């Protein structure tokens, strides 16, 4: 029994953390909100140069054949920076899915560019109506009516929807479900998409841990800086206890995500139950921390001018994405009761 990441895994986390500290300041996220995504696209390019974007691809495909567990810490950092973009779709789900279920022609066209960071993949599951980042992606991997399709975004139609998290570029997709887009029919694409769903939920949970951590950092800093009644508000017990509660929620969610990453990477039986726990606890922690961080900030936190709101809205969106708490709790319930 050893519940800790390896030095290599921590080194990769540090690399991602440094890139994001350098290139993904809140202004960059804010610019994406305002329709200027050049900054976040540049971060994607840098992450591709470090190998993070292609990390889950096989070595033959130019990747590092890294596992779900290896992805956890980089995704946590991406949540911390609130980097928008289909990073879970592309890295955690899309690349392995394309490698396993893409035809030779589909792989020829998309796999290399995806690994190199030049093509962004968005995955759309069977019953998924709202699709983030489709408009700025290059290719969609879609499950419709039990069939798997690989559709160039240029050949699909995307009707935009407005997310409260403007950086999420939400939309609905439509495409002609024709044979030319079909993925391999000699592999069990249903199982591969089902595996993809677990990876999407896990990757989202990992991001949520980072989102929580950032909001808590902001709130703690604010509580130290902001003075009322002649002293920092963080000296007041009422503030201390809110922030202590936020930390407890966050820190107890963290090992559930790590555990789920390990369970998936080692394909243990009932790994999906661990994924459900991870998604529930990470989502609940992020929503809880969001509320406490807002309250600690007071009125300034209730403005668009304060950066906090971008993380809060990311927390709300991600907590509901790829199975909300009710969905995952039901899955756990069926398992244990």
């Amino acid at each position: 029994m050893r519940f800790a990441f390896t030095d290599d895994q921590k080194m990769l986390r540090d690399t991602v953390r440094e890139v994001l500290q350098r290139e993904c300041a809140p202004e960059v996220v804010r610019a994406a909100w305002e329709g200027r995504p050049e900054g976040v696209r540049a971060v994607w390019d840098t992450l591709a140069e470090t190998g993070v974007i292609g990390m889950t691809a096989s070595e033959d495909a130019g990747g590092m054949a890294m596992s779900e567990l290896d992805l956890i810490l980089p995704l946590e950092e991406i949540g911390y920076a609130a980097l928008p973009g289909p990073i879970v779709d592309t890295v955690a789900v899309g690349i392995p899915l394309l490698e396993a279920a893409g035809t030779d022609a589909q792989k020829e066209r998309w796999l290399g560019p995806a690994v190199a960071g030049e093509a962004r993949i968005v995955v759309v599951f069977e019953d998924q109506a709202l699709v983030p980042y489709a408009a700025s992606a290059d290719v969609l991997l879609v499950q419709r009516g039990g069939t798997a399709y690989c559709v160039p975004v240029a050949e699909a139609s995307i009707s935009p929807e407005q997310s409260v998290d403007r950086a999420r570029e939400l939309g609905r997709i439509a495409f002609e479900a024709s044979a030319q887009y079909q993925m391999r029919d000699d592999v069990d694409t249903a199982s591969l998409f089902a595996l993809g769903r677990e990876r999407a939920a896990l990757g989202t949970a990992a991001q949520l841990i980072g989102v929580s951590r950032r909001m808590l950092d902001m709130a703690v800093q604010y509580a130290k800086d902001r003075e009322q009644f002649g002293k920092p508000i963080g000296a007041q017990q009422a503030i201390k206890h809110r922030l202590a509660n936020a930390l407890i929620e966050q820190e107890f969610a963290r090992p559930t995500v790590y555990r789920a990453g390990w369970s998936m990477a080692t394909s243990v039986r009932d790994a999906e139950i661990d994924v459900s726990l991870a998604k529930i606890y990470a989502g609940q922690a992020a929503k809880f921390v969001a509320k406490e961080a807002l309250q600690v900030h007071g009125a300034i936190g209730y403005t668009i001018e304060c950066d906090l709101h971008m993380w809060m809205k990311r927390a709300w969106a991600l907590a509901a994405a790829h199975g909300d708490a009710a969905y995952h709790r039901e899955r756990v319930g069926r398992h244990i009761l």
Partner: protein
Amino acid sequence: MDLNFTDSENAFRQECRAWLEANVPSEPLPSGDTKEGFALHLEWEHKLFDAGWAAVSWPKQYGGREATLFEWLIFEEEYYRVGAPSRVTQNGIFLLAPTLFEFGTDDQKERILRPMARGDVAWGQAWSEPNAGSDLASLKSTARRVEGGWRLTGQKTWSTRAVFCDMAYGLFRTDPEQARHRGLTYFMFPLHAEGVTVRGVDRLDGDEGFAEIFLEDVFVPDSEIIGEVDKGWGVAMATTSSERGLSLRSPGRFMATATRLIDLYHRYRDRSDPVLRDQVIQAWMDAQVYRWFTFQTVTRMAQGESIGPDSSMNKVFWSEMDVRTHETALAMIGDALELDEGSDGAVDGGHWMKGFQFALAGPIYAGTNEIQRNIIAERVLGLPRK
């Protein structure tokens, strides 16, 4: 990361399980917080010790097995899984012993540890005073230097099971010129000596589990001091994290409670609505989460890290989880919940109401959860004290 148990850890589990299944009393013992129950629990402790299970992580010379922390967690899981008796020696083996291992002299360890673990000498804690609870450093009991030792005077309270115990430990002011946490010394003292009066106090659940200790010029020799004179605060605080942290409440206990709750749900599901069902699921998940959090903590400890104020998060989590879990159980039982232990119609022997009342103590003892949250805010998050 490797969350599989090793072969030797699995073998250790099998060994624990086999012994416990063969030896745990088939009928639950009466409460260890009553006189007759306490005596029966001590007999059980003798049996545990003689088979080498009383303090598995201790060195062999003191009756342990030199088990790793992970093996200790495994032992705890197995212990609670079979519903073995509660540990009336815990104030000794989980609270005093870590202090002795860190600060005790060889003579003290030689003299005290084995009889403590076997239950031959029962230990109670004497931290709180009537006017020093959360603000422990304001304590007023004194120790006065005399020929060959000290004379202790003062009053201690909320001493768990002290009315049944032989010895106790606590802090006394040795330098009256110094204020608060300075000038305190860590003493061990006999409860049956001249000048000591122990008066039992009935707890919320009706058991005489609490006691007040009155000390009047009670003599103790120098050999009963742990650490240095006037440095007792540091000695006491160095090991409070073991109390708040995992040694007091390992995950095995809560996993066993969650399993019993699921069993209760199966029997009472007709009475349950979707809200209760969700609460049952939540209780099971919380126990799992506490288990993984603990494995993460123990990995850090095994790597030589000290846990320090992080243990306060542990304490808040398990104590509040335990209350929620019992509330869920009581909500399923309905109006039969008020039937006390010993009543014919009591569900599961009235165990859930008893457990609920015990759980309610969790957010209060070992440092109230308000104090824990202050510690988390100030020492983990770095918020200003004033």
